[in-house]
């Protein structure tokens, strides 16, 4: 077999390129966070309804006036559910489990929320709409989820919600489920002690 001396080669250029690839992939992971949110908001994937629901009032100003055109030709059943996440000693339920609405019609409903602990606690509700295709057509005019809510010890409150299902919603949508998850917004450590208190 013919043999030769190896030619010395400088590896550093290739190594630098590969390290750039690694750094790029690491940054890509962080870039995915905003990209993912933008994608979800634009498409309504994942039941995200809109930005700014946690930033109080913003949504109210931007909300469109109630559409003059009400599509009385069809009814969509809206189902309401709510979950209180672990660490928040609250109870919540919708006053009505479901209602039938015409697209374009302004509707109101309330959730009954009660603080079972013996101290005041602040929580934040996060909405989710299923199916995802309907999420961008589900317009909340007013919602307790726009702001943080504080309940005094043992206090119960009816928290209102006003919404319109836009007439543009696809004709294949017959049911929409609106679900809320109520989170404690106190620090995690306090959350744990709240759980202990609730027991």
């Amino acid at each position: 077999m013919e043999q030769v001396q190896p030619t010395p080669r400088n590896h550093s250029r290739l190594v630098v390129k590969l390290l750039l690839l690694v750094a790029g992939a690491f940054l890509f992971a962080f870039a995915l966070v905003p990209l993912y949110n933008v994608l979800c908001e634009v498409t309504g994937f994942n039941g995200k309804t809109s930005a700014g629901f946690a930033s109080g009032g913003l949504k109210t100003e931007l909300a469109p006036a109630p559409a003059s055109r009400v599509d009385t030709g069809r009814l969509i059943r809206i189902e309401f559910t709510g979950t209180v996440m672990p660490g928040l000693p609250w109870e919540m339920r919708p006053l009505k489990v479901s209602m039938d609405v015409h697209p374009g019609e302004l509707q109101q409903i309330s959730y009954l929320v009660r603080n079972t602990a013996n101290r005041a606690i602040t929580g934040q509700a996060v909405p989710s709409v299923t199916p995802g295709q309907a999420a961008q057509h589900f317009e909340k005019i007013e919602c307790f989820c726009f702001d943080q809510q504080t309940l005094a010890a043992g206090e119960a409150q009816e928290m209102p919600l006003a919404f319109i299902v836009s007439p543009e919603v696809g004709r294949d949508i017959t049911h929409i489920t609106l679900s809320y998850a109520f989170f404690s917004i106190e620090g995690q450590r306090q959350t744990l002690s709240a759980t202990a208190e609730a027991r």
Partner: protein
Amino acid sequence: MNTATTANGHADPHGEGHYSGPLRWLTTTNHKDIGTMYLTFSLIMFFVGGAMILAVRAELFSPGLQLMQPEFFNQLIGVHALVMIFAALMPAATGFANWMLPLMIGAPDMALPRLNNWGFWLLPPAALLLTMPFFLALFGIGDGALATGWTFYAPLSVQGGMGVDFAILAVHILGISSIMGSINVIVTIFNMRAPGMTLMKMPLFAWGWLITAFLLLATLPVLAGAVTMLLTDRHFGTQFFDAAGGGDPILFQHLFWFFGHPEVYILLLPVWGLMPHVLATFSRKPTYGYKAQVYSFIVIGVLSLVVWAHHFFTAGLPVPALIYFMFSTMAISIPLAVLFFCWIATMWKGAMTFETPMLFAVGFIVLFGIAGLTGLILADVAADAQYHHSYFVVAHFHYALFAGGIMGVMTGVYYWLPKWTGHMYSEKLGKLHFWLTVVSFNLTFMPQFFLGLAGMPRRIPDYALQFAEFNAISTVGAMILGFSQLLFAWNIWSCIRGGEKAEPRVWEGAEGLEWELSSPPPHHSWEIQPVIK
């Protein structure tokens, strides 16, 4: 004259006798030494991970809780997976690359020997970090190891105990080690091939590893990013995955599986690369469809980056996304079928003999075929709703990663062991090891397909009575499977200690540069490079 070392870009004449004893292994930059260390570490961790899962199977032998509390059970399954993937399978593949790549492509050593040394020595501390919470819990410190399963799903992992932090840091270190290894492999393959060895003349093992290395560089940093976010969510008040703060737990699943799916191919591509060598050797025929296999590797590598969401079809993804991920996942079966065809065509009408490596290779093809076919079932969105998170999935990925990954590694170990040690292993013990492994493997995992179809969920320490028989069979199989691996370790040990002298060309039909060298090869090989015509 020391051209090899200047070619390596470092001046240290890493010769034997430079240091002796433990210091030699601590400081070595020789690819053969480092390969040996990787493989030894991998074998040890294989038994550590195996012991964990035998405890799990013992608990699952009958319904009810007998041996352990659910919390401990959860720790065992998650750490078992992390140990097997990151500390057993990946180091085994890197060990192969270290030992064999320079021999096969006619290079004097790996391109970056010091990085290579670092890459290895990061592993033992990482393995220690991963398993230490078990021992700390014995002394009342913390509440044990990671108990979220290996996937770290948020929000569970945000709430978990300090075992999660240990695992996050261990994954960081293991990831850095793998990235170092991958950079080394790519630079070695691109810059150090023997003159005349074009990329399309390169051994398929090198091709498989090249794709693996690129996949690692593209995806491991994403995992590192995801677990970093998890760490800051846990301790520094960020809200990446906390819905209360505007984060999204599903985002974690996207990030995790963006790494997690290519990881499957990262584990399998080196094995797919080595299979054609073994099949060609024992069929005494050239490899069938070299180009087709190279292109299949590349296509699979690219496709693996865009199919991740099939791991969480049931998380509530929109229908268009479900359909995209279903079809793209199924598309992977096409290049994979090309590989299967090439493997079988290589054996077709060959003068076949069935030494232990060939037995493992043929066993690999059959059992890995089952993994592929059951994977197609899971890729079906409609069917997956039933099978998701059931024992069907457990059985499927063990057919892929034990029969595909670990039996593939064993194929390589038996195939190259005489080259590494200069001695023949015991063929009798090897064959016994194969038959015990393949029978008990099926005894363990075949019943789990039926358990999954019947609705038994994975990751539970207790189960309904109707699952009792299949679970008992599975546990018996697992015990035989686990303990017959001791034969493997014994066979390797005795082969290192002595035995019949191995020829340079160990196997009659073996082709390739590695067989031109003596067995064992000299400490420094190919310092004068061969010229490929």
